[in-house]
């Protein structure tokens, strides 16, 4: 049988998907064990026991200086920044791209500006943000929002502008005004695409979050990783990275589920 026709069943798919992960984990354990056999003090590839020990201190014991449990304080601070930054970006993207996508004069006026802003590397704006907004939460949230919003705006505005012209004509023959076309024809059809855009923006948003935290912060997942790097604390860095990956996967999965449940009409359209 040709390989293009071999479709694994559901059970087989889970098994196959788990295989590379298991291989990587086992390979890590073998290499780590070898290194520890050579040098019991090795810090580069910590064994699971060492990671658990290091993490339990961060997860279950309050820090003497701040009185907070470090791991959870980091998580809450990072998720707060990420959520607010993404939320602002999403809302802005929705409103701006609706106006840009539906109204040709607005698109002619502001389209080039949005394109221009979108090509600026957001990290290059970080010094400006720190200077203008200070080193507090505002600058970090602003970096995430400014970093992901222009790309989302371009994507969704282009998507709305590419809706079949027949739909806009039809809506007009049904008596719809520009405003009504925006809120009843373009907005609902843009929603699945918006959620898709947020899913894609999650990656860059994490990058901007970790960058901002690495440069100026006193709490946060990115701050912690860059702090303990000085002590070669791989036993903290690796679990933190795994935790960030897990959070990102859960967010992505939740968004995909929301899209499926909330917009049943978009199923099977490839949109």
């Amino acid at each position, binding site marked *: 049988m040709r390989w293009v026709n071999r479709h694994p069943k559901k059970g087989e798919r889970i098994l196959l998907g788990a295989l590379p992960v298991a291989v990587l984990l086992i390979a890590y354990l073998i290499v780590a064990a070898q290194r520890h056999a050579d040098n019991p003090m090795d810090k580069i590839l910590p064994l699971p026991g060492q990671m658990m020990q290091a993490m339990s201190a961060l997860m279950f014991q309050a820090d003497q200086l701040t009185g907070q449990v470090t791991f959870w304080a980091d998580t809450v601070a990072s998720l707060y920044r990420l959520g607010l930054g993404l939320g602002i970006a999403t809302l802005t993207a929705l409103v701006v791209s609706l106006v840009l996508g539906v109204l040709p004069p607005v698109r002619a006026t502001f389209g080039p500006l949005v394109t221009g802003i979108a090509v600026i590397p957001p990290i290059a704006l970080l010094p400006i943000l720190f200077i203008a907004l200070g080193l507090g939460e505002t600058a970090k949230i602003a970096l995430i929002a400014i970093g992901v919003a222009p790309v989302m705006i371009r994507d969704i505005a282009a998507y709305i502008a590419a809706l079949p012209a*027949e739909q806009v004509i*039809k809506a007009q023959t049904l008596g719809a005004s520009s405003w009504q076309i925006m809120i*009843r024809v373009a907005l609902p059809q843009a929603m699945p695409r918006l959620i898709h855009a947020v899913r894609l923006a999650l990656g860059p948003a994490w990058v901007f979050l970790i960058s901002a935290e690495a440069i100026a912060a006193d709490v946060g997942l990115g701050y912690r990783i860059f702090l303990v790097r000085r002590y070669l604390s791989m036993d903290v860095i690796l679990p933190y990275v795994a935790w960030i990956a897990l959070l990102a996967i859960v967010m992505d999965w939740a968004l995909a589920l929301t899209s499926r449940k909330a917009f049943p009409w978009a199923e099977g359209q490839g949109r």
Partner: protein
Amino acid sequence: MSAAPILSLQNVWVEYGDKIVLEKVDLDIQPGSFVSIVGPSGAGKSSLLRVILGQERPTRGVIELDGQPLAPECGPDRGVVFQRYSVFPHLSALGNVVFGLECEQAPLTARLFGSARKAAREQAEAMLVAVGLADSMHQYPAQLSGGMQQRLAIAQALIKRPRILLLDEPFGALDPGIRADMHALIQQLWSDYALTIIMVTHDIREAFTLGTRVLALDKRRHDPHAPHRFGATAVYDLTLNKKSNPEEPEKPAVLEIAKTQENA
């Protein structure tokens, strides 16, 4: 033909740059007529429909609806059914039909509540029953077959009681059996609602079966060195004498005319 025309085109030209698509189209359309427009590809059938619809502005000439010059914009006085994309994929069948009523009655929210919502839904449900979609009211367009989607598009247009219904190859994508059903449906609606219909089609048989008047668009003159120099206009304008129920009586004769048309 003495009654005042519902739609009147006077010396209408459509040009795209150097390319002349339609030239000197003069046309009076009587209320209650079913006008079929046929012609080869590129003869400006769809362009003519678009200027009547208001989607495009004619380069020259005047279009009057009920004696008033037409605004160069689509409006609820002219309904339309396209070959595809005529219904909103994110609304159920019922939602698609109610949409026209919501836009009219709720300018700001485009949504109705309470008794107004109930009345609009009842009106839309009656319309859906009339086009044979009584069992599919709560389904999304993606769940409907091509023929059912066109039925929905017709119901959606008719709820606004347009002065003229424009059909742009509405049955072109349907298979022959479904197409025959749709012909019966549109005939029924045409006589029940006393509609004025303009239909563009590439199917000559369909044009003669349904229409009370058949317009053939083509170029009168052709310059092989400058194919876009001359535009198309109505080269044949045939009025068919039909009763309101055109099922059987004159089909053979009608098809005879169609043959000469094809040879011409």
